[in-house]
């Protein structure tokens, strides 16, 4: 009985030690700072097409490196709400831009960050894009990302709200210099 008790105590101590180790080890913790994003700027403009983009900074606040395995935008502009444009969107890393819509998985070391470029491409269904966007409404864009780190992978989708006035302002400012 004495030996069994000792083994039981040792087992409990080992379990607690492993638990403390894992808690202390921590994990990656990605924070997309939507409240610090820039306003949308006009990147390109033609008669029937306007391309807007904004920067969204993010940081890995956790104690471990993490991987953003995938990241893409989901714009929420149903035709029931606004039917004058076709909308496409994409997300790129600021320091590794690409136009193919593919997000190459990337390691974000602990305590470091980067920035996403969220691009919205509006094409007028008929005629002038300026006229089409005149009746634009506020809309939401979900940033959907998949994290792969020390725990099982997970998907999150924080939402940013884009005011119609941002597009109006960007159109009046004109195409921004890169």
């Amino acid at each position: 009985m004495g030996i069994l008790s000792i083994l039981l105590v040792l087992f409990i101590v080992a379990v607690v030690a492993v638990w403390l180790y894992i808690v202390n080890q921590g994990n990656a913790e990605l924070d997309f700072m939507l409240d610090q994003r820039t306003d949308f700027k006009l990147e390109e403009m033609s008669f029937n097409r306007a391309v807007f983009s904004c920067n969204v900074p993010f940081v890995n606040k956790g104690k471990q490196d993490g991987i953003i395995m995938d990241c893409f935008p989901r714009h929420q502009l149903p035709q029931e709400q606004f039917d004058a444009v076709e909308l496409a969107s994409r997300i790129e890393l600021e320091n590794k831009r690409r136009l193919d819509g593919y997000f190459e998985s990337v390691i974000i070391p602990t305590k470091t960050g980067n920035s996403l470029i969220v691009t919205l491409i509006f094409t007028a269904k008929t005629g002038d894009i300026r006229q089409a966007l005149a009746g634009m409404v506020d809309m939401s864009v979900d940033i959907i990302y998949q994290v792969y780190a020390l725990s099982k992978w997970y998907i999150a989708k924080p939402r940013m709200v884009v005011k119609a006035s941002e597009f109006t302002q960007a159109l009046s400012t004109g195409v921004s210099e890169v």
Partner: protein
Amino acid sequence: MAKLELVAVKTRILTPDDDILDALEEYAKDKIGPGDVVSVAESVVAITQGRIIRPEELNPGFWACLLSRFFSTKGSLSNPAGMQAAMNLEGQWRIVAAFFIGMLCKLVGIKGVFYRLGGQQAPLIDDVTGTMPPFDKHIVYGPSDPQGVAEAIKKRLGCFGAAVADVNDLKRALIVGITDGVNEQELREILIDNPFGNASQKTPIVIVKNYADAVAKVQAKATV
């Protein structure tokens, strides 16, 4: 006498629909001579063998979640999915046993025991981000029968020798399959600076030109 020279051969992105021997013939045959050694990146061999899996297809169990916490976060086994992939290939209990024996050995200063006991696949698994798009979102296993692949390359291309190699920019060169007549240690040293380049360079084939001549020269010197 011709000098030893490394020639990296660019290919398209090879996929599970490709045959590595056909790809070698397509991209490198006209560059390969009878005295050359052809080396191929192990991850590309594995991809052409279809030895890839998405983390979403794995369901890491208790042991995978626990043991992965004790591996360097720079390695491929530090994620539950990567660890589960190793367990699926080598057997859960083999990995668990290798872990505990490896840990005990480490306590007395003996390193590397886990990888010796955990099976050939454990050190060869490439985790997410470890390979070029579109395989950057996959776990890539080590190749199956790399020795057989090396021998098949030699036979098909009529070269002096062939090897399947795992080389990275951290000065790690591991030969996982090699034909007779090629010295593994020498080839490791030849490839140590990673002539395969990074993934985006798409050069998974490196031809060691004039290897046979260089060996003959060294042997002749040794006998004088």
